[in-house]
């Protein structure tokens, strides 16, 4: 086999001898930048496109509007691609969701649909008397409409943490990375979110009766 390799190679070089310099120039120019870029795009798509559903779901819940959600996700993917060279972590989903979240907030703030300060100051604990019983909740646990209504009423910060936990199945550590808060705060915010949700849920059940 070695012999065959040598002879073939030899015949090629002979064939090319007169124009060799020109050839090298063309090959380098053509393949290097394109190849690198195409490889980066392929690697980006391979890492990030599997999380498209997660990205869309989060944006859809945050914005409560399909068209906005699609625009935000597209924008987030472009932003992610531009800073992809800075991504060295192993958790592509958390990284992408962080960008989706930030992009969503940019739009929400622009539309003045969210006011971070008021939702955080809200007193959650004062409303225990409205709480629904486990039995009542279980009875309505399959009622998607009712659950969606209750979720949509939640302040954005609470809605997003519930989604990250229950639909994306992220750990406190991952949620903390996305929201830039320590795991202890993830726990207390989830507790407050669930408390609030329980309240809305009870109100929804009450309305039905």
């Amino acid at each position: 086999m070695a012999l065959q390799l040598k002879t073939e190679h030899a015949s090629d070089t002979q064939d090319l001898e007169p124009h060799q310099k020109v050839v090298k120039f063309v090959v380098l120019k053509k393949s290097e930048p394109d190849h690198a870029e195409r490889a980066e795009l392929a690697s980006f798509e391979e890492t990030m496109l599997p999380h498209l559903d997660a990205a869309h779901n989060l944006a859809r819940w945050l914005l409560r509007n399909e068209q906005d959600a699609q625009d935000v996700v597209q924008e987030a993917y472009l932003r992610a691609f531009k800073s992809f060279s800075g991504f060295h972590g192993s958790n592509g989903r958390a990284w992408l969701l962080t960008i989706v979240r930030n992009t969503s907030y940019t739009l929400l703030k622009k539309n003045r649909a969210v006011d971070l300060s008021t939702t955080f100051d809200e007193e959650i604990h004062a409303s225990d008397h409205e709480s629904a019983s486990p039995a009542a909740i279980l009875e309505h646990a399959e009622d998607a409409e009712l659950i969606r209504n209750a979720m949509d009423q939640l302040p954005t910060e609470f809605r997003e943490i519930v989604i990250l936990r229950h639909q994306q199945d992220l750990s406190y550590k991952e949620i903390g990375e996305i929201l830039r808060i320590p795991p202890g705060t993830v726990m207390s915010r989830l507790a407050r979110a669930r408390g609030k949700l329980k309240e809305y849920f009870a109100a929804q059940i009450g309305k039905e009766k």
Partner: protein
Amino acid sequence: MNCEEAIKLMDGYLDGELDPMTSQRIEEHLRDCHKCEQAYETHTALAHAISRAAPYYKAPTELRQRIQSSLRATAGLRDSRGAARENHTLLTSPRAERRFVLPQTPWNWLALAAAIILAAIIGSSFLPRLRTPASDQFLATQLIASHVRSLMANHLTDVASSDQHTVKPWLDTKLDFAPPVIDLSSEGFPLIGGRLDYLDNRPVAALVYGHRKHFINLFVWPAAPDEAKAPKTITRQGYQLLHWADPDFNYWAVSDVNVNDLQLFKQQFETRTARH
């Protein structure tokens, strides 16, 4: 633990995010305090309701296409210029294409040689991993040791819960795979909890089941493609080991229950995982 503390930590407990010691203290409190137990039940019911019934908005197909073409537009500016240049050289010099291909020929040979060497390396590194009876015996020793240790060192579970929806997410966040977790209470094998373990040179999930006064450790880890699929039993030092595999996972059940009970356990587990 008092109620205030229990309420504060309840969500962490529900999400399987607490350390085993704290989880156990919460569990003790919930057993004694009806009010907190009620609150916990409500939170659990709510959590299940959200996971089950809240809509998950999947991305429409056209969004994927839109994103892909916008990515190409961003990355592809030079792409199209490159194509133009290629056309240009092709037009000015009719031999360009041939020249472009030929200098690569030696590389193809190199690539072939590299592939052969790589295949040889991969092949040889996998050879020792083929299951031989000897390696099974070694694994059996490890499995029994792990089973005994779990009972002896009072470290049966890292996450103690009979609720598969608590055990599973906890394990999923700690491992690089998502083992099936199923409560078999109605079949006589109540789920007691889950634990992380290290076996066969990798982290594995250990699911702990009870059966009358006995414990069953079910070790689960992803199946290698070439792994033997036939179930097998091993009896050693009074322990029964039962092995089976499905396309995704390897299972080893270890216990001191008799072999028929262990077979029954396997059957129930398989029926239920098949249904899920």
